């Protein structure tokens, strides 16, 4: 393979960037076909119960309203692979906001007016929506998200903790969080000649196609799902969502193309959230800070219809050496919307608690928090005993400390002041697993010397087309501009979702293999290429079938400087610096953007974001971008992402690890630790808003 510097690693500009900034890139709700009907969901307005009657006459009388679908008349679905997709199938209301009807009309306005005119009667039952640490419904599931065992024990963590000379026992509380991508979920569906085509805002159209095939009882080859451009997802579009099923169902029922775009206010209930967690961390150490016991226990919620368990104790199985360890998840099924993936599920929430506890231990011991982490560096993955394929956490910490100017730090809390502002700095580690899935890709050489590569990757704003072109070009030894990349359609060779920071690894491996195979085929070919060119299609089933004998993770370190207004308790980040060891970085421009975006999301988790479950109504209070506080530009300060050159031969042909999520992991802890340094106050509940700080200020 050619290691052309113009290809891999180069800061290539996003291929679709111009289309996006000039408004010509079309998103799922911009593929309106002639005769299109517009959908508007009628959400349940009770926390739990049953629909006893739906009166649709008023809605049908609204000019322009075509059809009202309810559980009485909606097409029957086969059992979907995800219970959240079983919409309009029965009278059950599992949570507030669940769709109980869909109004279809000739205009969006008519659909909405029609939805207002649908009259729904309910029989409500007692609801239970508030997660508590001693909730009677808590149980230990078999698995947490990602297939991780819910409980893992090594040695005797409790006895070792009791015997440890230095102990930290702290409980951290995270409210629910919402992904809130800029583009709300949307689908446009149309049937033609027995074939269903859906433009869906999704992180993976193969998965949507497969779910629709299951739910609608259709062969997969009768469905095409297109996700050409996607305005972010952060996990909320990683699994098929009800809008795709509803649009497809409605299009089939009415014979019209149907477009359904979710209003922002409906998203909190039907496109997932990061479940709240109550996390108890117990660390036992000797007086040199060497850990003897690590225990991380998670309490979280799921919905009544689906078990999703935020795997927040899993990073404790990876991070630090300790002879004794206990990591457990317990979950209660409540009458709440179904939680799901949100950027770095498990790692983002769990590393907030673990890395805060490590800082507490450093403070208790009077050991520098960077040094404490270096002292607990494991030789093999603590939980599995597997060797790491590469692990450069200590290098990230050292390099970050150097760049950040950590060595000058006065460890005393509340010692630095600038006018009315208390200044502090904090550090936390980051980790994210290397995931990869089977993918297929095609590569074709044309007689004019150009190439075309196809893979059903999805660009959710990350620059997937661009980096895949770089991968192909590096193998084909051609300029990336000479390679056309086709992505974003389920008719292309099958590929997994843009999720789990695994997209580039999975798609890129297939593209690499296709290009490599094509190069070989071309070498065997003599004479000019036939007019149709020469093409190959491959998949990585073989490469991804066996579990590698290595623990494979990216690592990183986050450093934060905060200013706490001693008058108001307002916390603002001044500097945020991340250093990552994530294998080979394939595009320095888009990689930096992903790292920084992840860090901003971690900043939001630390300081501004949170979803409040309303105990009376059973919904999340924050339902628009005025009340759900994503960081504004003014909140995002001097923010830097750096990475180490990491050569890991046990990954994939590109040598890359995923980078989409690690920026979010540990960032909140670094900021919380900096707040503690600034003020002396150890706050264990996010987000760090003025109400939390005020009791601790002079």
């Amino acid at each position, binding site marked *: 393979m050619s290691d052309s510097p113009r290809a891999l690693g180069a800061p290539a500009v996003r291929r679709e960037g111009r289309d996006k900034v000039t408004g010509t890139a079309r998103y799922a709700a911009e593929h309106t076909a002639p005769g299109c009907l517009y959908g508007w969901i009628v959400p349940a*307005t009770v926390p739990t119960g049953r629909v006893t009657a739906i009166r649709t006459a008023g809605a049908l009388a609204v000019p322009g309203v075509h059809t009202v679908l309810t559980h009485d008349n909606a097409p029957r679905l086969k059992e979907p692979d995800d219970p959240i997709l079983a919409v309009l199938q029965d009278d059950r209301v599992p949570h507030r906001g669940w769709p109980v009807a869909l109004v279809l009309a000739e205009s969006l*306005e008519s659909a*909405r*007016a029609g939805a*207002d005119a649908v009259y729904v009667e309910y029989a409500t039952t007692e609801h239970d929506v508030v997660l508590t640490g001693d909730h009677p419904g808590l149980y230990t599931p078999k698995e947490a998200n990602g297939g991780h065992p819910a409980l893992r024990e090594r040695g005797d963590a409790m006895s070792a903790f009791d015997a440890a000379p230095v102990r930290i026992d702290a409980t951290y509380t995270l409210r629910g969080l919402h992904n809130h991508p800029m583009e709300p979920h949307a689908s446009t569906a149309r049937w033609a000649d027995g074939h269903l085509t859906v433009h869906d805002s999704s992180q993976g159209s193969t998965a949507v196609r497969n779910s629709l095939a299951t739910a609608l009882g259709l062969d997969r080859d009768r469905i095409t799902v297109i996700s050409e451009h996607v305005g972010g997802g952060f996990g909320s579009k990683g699994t098929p969502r009800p809008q795709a099923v509803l649009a497809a169902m409605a299009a089939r029922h009415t014979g019209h193309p149907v477009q359904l775009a979710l209003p922002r*206010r409906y998203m909190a209930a039907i496109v997932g959230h990061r479940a709240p967690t109550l996390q108890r961390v117990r660390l036992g150490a000797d007086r040199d800070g060497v850990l003897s016991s690590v225990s991380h226990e998670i309490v979280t919620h799921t919905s009544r219809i689906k078990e999703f368990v935020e795997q927040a104790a899993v990073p404790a199985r990876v991070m630090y050496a300790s002879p004794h360890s206990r990591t457990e998840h317990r979950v209660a099924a409540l009458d709440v919307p179904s939680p799901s993936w949100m950027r770095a599920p498990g790692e983002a929430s769990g590393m907030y608690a673990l890395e805060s506890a490590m800082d507490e231990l450093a403070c208790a011991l009077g050991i520098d928090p960077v040094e404490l982490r270096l002292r607990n560096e494991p030789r093999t993955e603590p939980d599995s005993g597997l060797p790491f394929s590469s692990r450069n956490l200590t290098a990230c910490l050292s390099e970050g400390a150097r760049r950040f100017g950590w060595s000058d730090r006065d460890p005393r809390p509340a010692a630095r002041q600038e006018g*009315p502002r208390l200044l502090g700095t904090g550090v936390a580690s980051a980790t994210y697993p290397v995931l990869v899935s089977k993918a297929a890709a095609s590569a074709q050489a044309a007689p004019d010397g150009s190439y075309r590569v196809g893979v059903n990757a999805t660009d959710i704003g990350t620059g997937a087309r661009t980096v895949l072109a770089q991968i192909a070009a590096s193998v084909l030894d051609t300029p990336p501009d000479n390679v056309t990349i086709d992505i974003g359609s389920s008719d292309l060779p099958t590929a997994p979702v843009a999720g789990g920071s695994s997209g580039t690894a999975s798609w890129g491996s297939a593209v690499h293999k296709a290009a490599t195979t094509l190069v070989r085929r071309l070498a065997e070919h003599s004479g000019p290429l036939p007019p149709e060119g020469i093409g190959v299609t491959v998949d990585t089933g073989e490469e991804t079938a066996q579990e590698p004998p290595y623990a494979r993770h990216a690592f990183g370190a986050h450093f934060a400087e905060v200013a706490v*207004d001693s*008058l*108001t*308790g*307002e916390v*603002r980040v001044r500097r945020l610096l991340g250093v990552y060891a994530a294998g080979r970085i394939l595009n320095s421009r888009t990689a930096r953007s992903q790292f920084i975006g992840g860090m901003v999301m971690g900043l939001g988790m630390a*300081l*501004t974001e949170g979803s*409040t479950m*309303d*105990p*009376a*109504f059973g919904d999340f*209070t*924050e*339902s628009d971008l*005025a*009340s759900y*506080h994503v*960081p*504004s*530009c*003014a*909140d995002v300060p001097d923010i830097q992402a750096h990475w180490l050159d990491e050569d890991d031969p046990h990954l994939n042909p590109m040598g890359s690890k995923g980078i989409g999520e690690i920026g979010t992991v540990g960032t909140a802890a670094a900021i919380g630790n900096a707040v503690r340094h600034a003020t002396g106050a150890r706050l264990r509940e996010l*987000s760090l*808003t*003025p*109400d939390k700080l*005020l*009791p601790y200020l002079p």
Partner: protein
Amino acid sequence: MKPFAYLRPATVSEAVRAGAGHPGSRFLGGGTNLVDLMKLGVETPGLLIDVSRLPLDGMTRTDDGGLRIGATVRNSDLAAHPEVRNHWPALSQALLAGASGQLRNTATTGGNLLQRTRCPYFQDVSKPCNKRIPGSGCPAREGTHRDLAVLGHSQDCVATNPSDMAVALAALDATVQLHGPEGVRTVQVTDFHRLPADNPDQDTVIRPGELITEVVLPPPSAGAVSLYRKARDRASYAFALASVAAVLSVRDGRVDRISLAFGGLAHRPWRARVAEDLLRGASTTGDAFARAVDAELAAARPLRDNGFKVDLARRLAIGALVELTTRAAST
């Protein structure tokens, strides 16, 4: 959104006539709040009377050195106006602390005064709210109310007024000019918004058909310094948890002129008359400031989750008075 009629009158009197003739009509300024509320189904006007192009976009000094601000002057323009920045800096600061650049470019002076509470229950038509539907109940009292009122609320309503601008105007003794079917009248900004009592559906004292035509600032008092300070959950585009506008002058080491108003605490900008009375003539010490502010906030009746606002307001007010004292000494 319900269908509505749209009218763009050419004159104030035409606008007022249309408003008086159509109960349930609404005047449309920048629409940054009204249109949102229409999308939510909270506002369902049958007629929108677009007053944004009426000739009310002027800013002129009055004969006595005050400033007339037309009702359609955009928030950005008002904040950036050199006269405002030089003579009424608290107003400029308050405007710039509100909303986002895009919203300020659109929102008008009159509209800002008439924006509605952001109480989550008010904005959700699937839930009760006495402000939206009198008598339906107030879930906020027991529900999510961290951002809601600590002063002047009633059994029926714990909403807060969201405006930053209005808080500065209250401290600056501004007046609102109203054109109505029965003529023109002038109302103090401090009397313009009301407390909820048992009819929280009425945010203000405005009468049916009345149109805000201008806001008038009295002349700045000689030797006085002023500021607006707001505490919020994020650095931009967040409503005040609490805010303070203050105007202060010092003579012979004692407070001479004092004007103090809180935002984010009540159904209206909260002019702190109790504190002002105690401060006038008092020494300019932190202790004196604290005593006065505490006396004002003794009236606070925080709800389960918003007691921090009282502390926050106290800190903001004392901090503002200390800072203004320092500044007054150096001018």
